[in-house]
Every structure is written in C-alpha cells, then in structure tokens.
C-alpha cells in the first residue's frame, strides 16, 4: 500500500515537473494579423466611397477658402452634418486634411485617400479593422470561394454618427392559432 502511494507521489512530481517543459516546447501561436497601416500592395479593393452627390472633389470649393479650425455651427455648407462621434475631442480637421481637402489624414499626419479611410478608423478601432480584414466584421460581397469584396466602414456607418439607427422589423410570423 505504502509502495503504491510513494509511486503515485513520484509520478505526480514527475508530471508536474514535465508540464512546464511541455508548455515551453509548444510552438508559439501564429502572430495575429497587424492592425497598423499595411504596405502599399496590401491595399484592399473596395467600391467607391459613399459621397453625397456632387460633393467631391472637396477642393473645388475648399481650395479657395481659408482654413478655419474654430469649432462653430456650420452655417453656409455642411449644415446637415451632426457630429456624434467622440465630438468632445474632435472637429473636422482632426480627420480631414487641412492642406488638401480631397484627402484624410492620420494622427501621424500621414495622408490617406477616402478609398483607404479604414486606416483612419482603425487608429482607434484596431480590433474591428483586424476582424474586417478577415471578413468577419461587416458585410462581405462576392463569392465564398472566389472573389471576395469588402465595403468601406463608411458604407454602413455614417462616419459622423457611426451608431446604427433603429429600423422597423419585418412582420412577425403567423401564430399557429391563426392557421385555417
């Protein structure tokens, strides 16, 4: 009896000593896809950005206008824009480029075109960008085993008010009691 007990104890000791070794030998997991800006060739194919009709290029007006960084009610133009996207800390030129309005810019000052606006969004929403690249955040178009299409963040989320609006549901199914 005592022999058995000693043997079990020895086995347990050996097992506990071996466990960390086994863990250490386990291959390290594959690195997670990066959230940062990708190299140029990794550019994702997307449909054209959802501009309001006739509003782009922005420089057709802004090229001749003076840059005004003051937070103010927009009276002459863009009065329809309501900013509810961390509006405490942000104003137009934090995302739109002051020198060339046809571009956006990152926090680093690097310019990005509207077609790559996901890089701008990904500065804060890194984990969403990672899922989006994998095709898991947002809608996917195309084919499951062929060409896969992406949509820009702005195709679904209004960048100035990104939260989805509530929608009317389609009719509920008929109750069994209503069957003829």
């Amino acid at each position, binding site marked *: 009896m005592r022999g058995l007990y000693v043997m079990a104890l020895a086995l347990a000791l050996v097992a506990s000593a071996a466990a960390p070794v086994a863990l250490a030998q386990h291959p390290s997991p594959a690195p997670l896809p990066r959230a940062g800006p990708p190299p140029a060739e990794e550019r994702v194919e997307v449909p054209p950005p959802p501009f309001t009709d006739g509003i782009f290029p922005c420089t057709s007006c802004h090229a001749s206008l003076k840059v005004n960084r003051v937070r103010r009610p927009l009276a002459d133009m863009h009065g329809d824009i309501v900013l509810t996207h961390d509006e405490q800390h942000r104003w137009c030129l934090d995302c739109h480029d002051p020198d060339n309005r046809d571009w956006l810019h990152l926090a680093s000052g690097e310019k990005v075109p509207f077609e790559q606006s996901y890089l701008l969004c990904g500065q804060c929403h890194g984990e969403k960008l990672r*899922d989006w690249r*994998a*095709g*898991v*955040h*947002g*809608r*996917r*178009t*195309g*084919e*499951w*085993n*062929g060409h896969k299409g992406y949509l820009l963040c702005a195709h*679904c989320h209004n960048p100035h008010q990104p939260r*989805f609006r*509530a*929608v*009317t*549901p*389609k*009719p*509920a*199914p*008929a*109750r069994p009691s209503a*069957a*003829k």
Partner: protein
Amino acid sequence: MDPEKRPPPVSRRQFASVAAAAAAGFILTACGPKRLRELSRERLAALLEDLEKDYTKRFGTAVVVADTPPIEGVTFAYALDLSRCIGCRRCVYACVEENNQSRDPEVQWIRVLGMNKEKGIDFSESDPYYQPAEVPEEGHFYVPVACQQCRNAPCTKVCPTGATWTEPDGIVVIDYDWCVGCRYCMAACPYGARHFNWAEPTIPRDHLNTKTHYLGNRPRPKGVVEKCTFCIQRVRAGRYPACVEVCPVGARKFGNLLDPKSEIRYVIENKRVLVLKEELNTMPKFFYFYGT
C-alpha cells in the same frame, strides 16, 4: 427426423411460381422510382427534364431544376454574430423569396427568437412574435434559428423512407419525391427547423425563383417536409446564401470549414463561439459567436 413430421416436398409447380413472382418483384422494383444517388445519368436527366416541364407549365415561366453536385474538399459551415443581429427579420423574407416557400399557408425556414438579456439564451423565455415599432429593443437580443446542419443529425436517422440524408458537403437535404409526410423528422429535430406543407403551397407567379435545385428550392407539393439547405442552389455555385447577402449589419458569415483561411475558421479560432443545445450531441455546423 421423424418422416411424418417432415414438411411436404416443394413441387415443381410451386417452386416455379415462387421464382417467377420473385423475379417479377425484382424487375418491378428495379424499374420503379429510385433514390437520387442510385439513378443513372440518363434517368436523372429525364427526371429533371420532366420536373422542369411540369413547373414551367404550372407557373407559366421557364424554370431550371439543377442537380449541381457537392464540391470536393468542402464542408459548409455558418456563423452568426449574436452581438450584431438587430432582429429586423430581413433574412426571413429574403429566404422565403429565394427558396420558394409557401406564402399561404405561411412557411418560413428562419425563425428569429427575441431574447431577454437578463435571461440569456433561454428558449422558454424567447418570443418569436415580437413586433415593436423599432428594433433592436432595449434589453433584448435576437437569435435567428434555422436548420443547424448537424453532423450527427437526429432527423435523418428517423426517416422511414430514406428521403433525407447528409450530402458529402455537409448539407442535410430532403428528396421531396421520397418524403411520405410522416413528420418523424420534425419530432426528432430539437431546433424546430423543419416545416410541413399542411396545404398546397402557394407562390405568386411573379415571385417564383426560377433557378432551383432538385434537393433545395424547387417548388414542393402538399404533404412534404422542407427546411433550410444553406441555399444549396447558390452555395454549390460559389455564391453566398441569400440571408448572408441581405443581412444589413453583416452578422451572418458563411464558408468552407475545411479551408483554414475562411471566415468561419477565423471566427472559430478568434471569437467566443457557441452552438445551440450542445448537450444533445447533435454537433451543429451552425455556430453563434460574439464579434465584440
């Protein structure tokens, strides 16, 4: 053995008549209706042509009935993001249109269960009949349920005629020509995913989807069971199911479980995933996950 208890010897006449009956029976069953997988190419083509003619006459528009085979090395799987679904039921009606479900009496393959956040996923607390002015409602989340395409499917085991089975690409299908309407499969399914045509299905002519598959969305007769087939007519041609394409919030994901680069594998490897009624060991290929 006692010679008096020996059974009377079989006469030449008796033997000949039994043999003839057996031969006739064999020939009759061999020539009669066959299961899809037993059909020769010619007979299958003839069968599909007959069906196309019949549907075309009934609906007054050209209907195609395909028998697109499964793709080698593909097992289909589905993932649905519970943190995104807003319960708008767009998927339900896209499915009805795509898969030629009866409008009256109403047949819907997808059922969206409205759930109370405080109760969690509790089917006894769920409400499929919610109808507020706007969704999502405060304090609620939504679980759309259709066929879970189980790897260990209870429905296919109980079918007395072999009218339902699992295809090599993992889709559980029904041959409506072999279904006798006993509804054992409906009793066996723990997800309420199978639906019975209690009356002659009605589909408005101009709403008929004319691109059909023999095992999927071809028009069904009265008295047979039907269910979700992952849009077999679309996915075997490389397309996404109709519900995936219509979902306004991108909550629905679809792909090949055997492809390590598919969205499905990313979800399973990186997200919190669950299946419904795991304890029943049905092993669904329909996964629910939390994307946030």
